[in-house]
């Protein structure tokens, strides 16, 4: 009899252990980079809408971090806020409310930076996402994708974005792009090639924020 009880308990234990292992496989982690450099800083209100969409879409157990892209972005200081939602839906709702409030406060006081270090932000984002051990990892870049590095900032080395989805949002055209559209297209092609080379699982670009929001999380 004791043997049977032990066997049943061990099966239950294995099942529960399996269940714990699967939790990360289903969770999502999103790292959102918000470009605050130059004229793009005016677009922050749109970024808040994106954050709100993410808050509405992410589930309990998922993680979300919002960071700003500044002159040198490879630092935790640029992370505006980060949260891993509680497994209980009621607690997760509270966390979402608090997160929303903090992001709104950030948006009100956002200041434009002199340079744009997207690569540093990507490396920082990959680091954060890998720590979450989530099943689906996404870096959302809210920027015009024009990198303008500070003097002394070294970013021309291979980066690692293995298994991470990269979503470029609201990639606006610069004044020079209007004169020569090839610059815009080349810029996008360059980033696509770079992230693919870095091991990213997907490169998605979303400019129609009104109708194509679902593409941010890839329909998960």
């Amino acid at each position, binding site marked *: 009899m004791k043997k049977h009880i032990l066997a049943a308990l061990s099966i239950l234990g294995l*099942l529960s252990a*399996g*269940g*714990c292992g*699967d*939790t990360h*496989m*289903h*969770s999502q982690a999103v790292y959102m980079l918000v470009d605050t450099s130059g004229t793009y800083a005016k677009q922050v209100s749109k970024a808040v809408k994106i954050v*709100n*969409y993410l*808050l*509405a879409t992410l*589930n*309990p*157990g*998922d993680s979300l971090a919002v960071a700003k892209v500044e002159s040198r972005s490879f630092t935790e200081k640029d992370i505006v806020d980060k949260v891993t939602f509680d*497994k*209980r*839906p*009621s607690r*997760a*709702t509270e966390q*979402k*409310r608090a997160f*929303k409030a903090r992001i709104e406060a950030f948006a009100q006081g956002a200041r434009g930076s002199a340079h744009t270090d997207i690569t540093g932000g990507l490396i920082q984002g990959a680091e954060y996402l890998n720590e979450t051990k989530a099943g689906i990892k996404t870096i959302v870049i809210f920027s015009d994708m024009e990198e303008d590095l500070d003097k002394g900032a070294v970013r021309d080395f291979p980066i690692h974005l293995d298994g991470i989805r990269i979503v470029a949002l609201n990639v606006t055209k610069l004044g020079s792009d209007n004169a020569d559209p090839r610059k815009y297209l080349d810029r996008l092609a360059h980033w696509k090639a770079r992230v693919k080379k870095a091991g990213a699982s997907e490169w998605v670009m979303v400019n129609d924020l009104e109708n194509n929001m679902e593409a941010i999380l890839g329909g998960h």
Partner: protein
Amino acid sequence: MNDWHSWLFWPNNVALSLLALFMLLTLFLYAARRQIHGVIHSLCYLVASSLRFAARWLFSAANTLRERNRTVLLAHGETEATAQIEREFERVTSIIRKDLQEYPALQRKLREEITRIEEDFRRCGEVPPPPPEWVSALESVAQIKSGGDIPRKLLEDINKSIQKIHDKTVTEFRRSYEDRHKILKGMLPTWRSVAQAMEQIDKKMVSLQDNGKRIDDHMAKYEAMRAKDDKAEHMLTVSGFVQLGISSLVMVIAMGGAFINYKLIALPMSEMVGASDYITNNLKTSDVAALVIILMEASMGLFLLESLRITGLFPRIASMDDRMRRRLMLVSLVFLVILAGIESSLALMRDMLIADKAALMRDLASAAPAAAEGGLLTHIPMAGQMIMGFVLPFALAFVAIPLETVVYSLRTVIGALLVLLLRGLGFVLRFIGVGFKRIAKVLEMTYDICIVIPLLVERIVGASGGSAPGRLRQQKSGSTS
């Protein structure tokens, strides 16, 4: 291309080479005709015999299965009939115990009332008027021979007394009639009471008679089952199909209820066990937990109905002593009530979670705040969910009844369908076997078509008194075909 040409005798003359090849092949086929016919015949016979053997085995298996089904079906039918007869006997016993137990008292009452009626009847019998005493006095007066005033006076006195007596007698007669009428009037309630008592007895007797008839019907069925009658078996099989259909329908409805129940508690269960925990790739722990709660409710309902002896899926529970059974019933009921309470509170939590999420969505959409909540309208869905959460487990408990029917009738239905399937397969195999027998002849004839020229030559030679081997071959080919 070169490979193909290597088969030609004269590569430069393809037609001639092909003709030569054809001739050679025809000659070879003609020479091997008897052997090839033998091979075709043997192969077809082998396949046909195998199929026939398999068909026979299938028919035999179908018969065995049918016998087994019949035994199980009749045994089950007997058990059911026995239970029904027992129930009818119990009803009869209860009628006898409840109603006819009072029969001695009723009989005594009837006897007493009849005695009273008899007495009354006797009392109200007509009392003859007293014989006229003056008749003898008149006779005496009449015998007096001497006349005079004395007799006249006597007669006058007699007349007076007669008048007096007559008046008195008439008065008494009237009084006695009046008394008799009163007695008869007093008998009326007694008559009514007797009539009512008789009516009651009549009703009980009719009810008993009905029960007796029902017992007779059940006994007739039971006897038919005992005699392993085909009609009884057919009746039971049809009944099995009908019962399965009805029970399945009820089960589908119950499943709909269970699904609604599941939807009601799946979301709030995530608050208890976590929304992001998964047991397998696609199976959320909260969903499984909700399912487990529903299954537990169904199990408790099953135990409750088992302990109430409404269903009989567990012989162990049925054979428990009454005290233990009552305890089990109580425990099941308590668990069911607790689970219903949990579900009701989960339904409330669901409503709160949905309201909270809706508020968050409004905040995130930066929409205008919703109108102030309150009033009866907002509370009605919440109350409805809570009531549903409490009631559905009890409704789900009754699924044990159709479940039992499904379990018992499914065996009959599957058995009958299996027999049908085996017989169908047997028929198909036998049909194919017969086909193979016939196809041997077709193949032989088709073969002969390929070597029709040498056969024609043989026939011509044979007809013009050809060689003995030719005749012999013809004879053999005739016997083979």
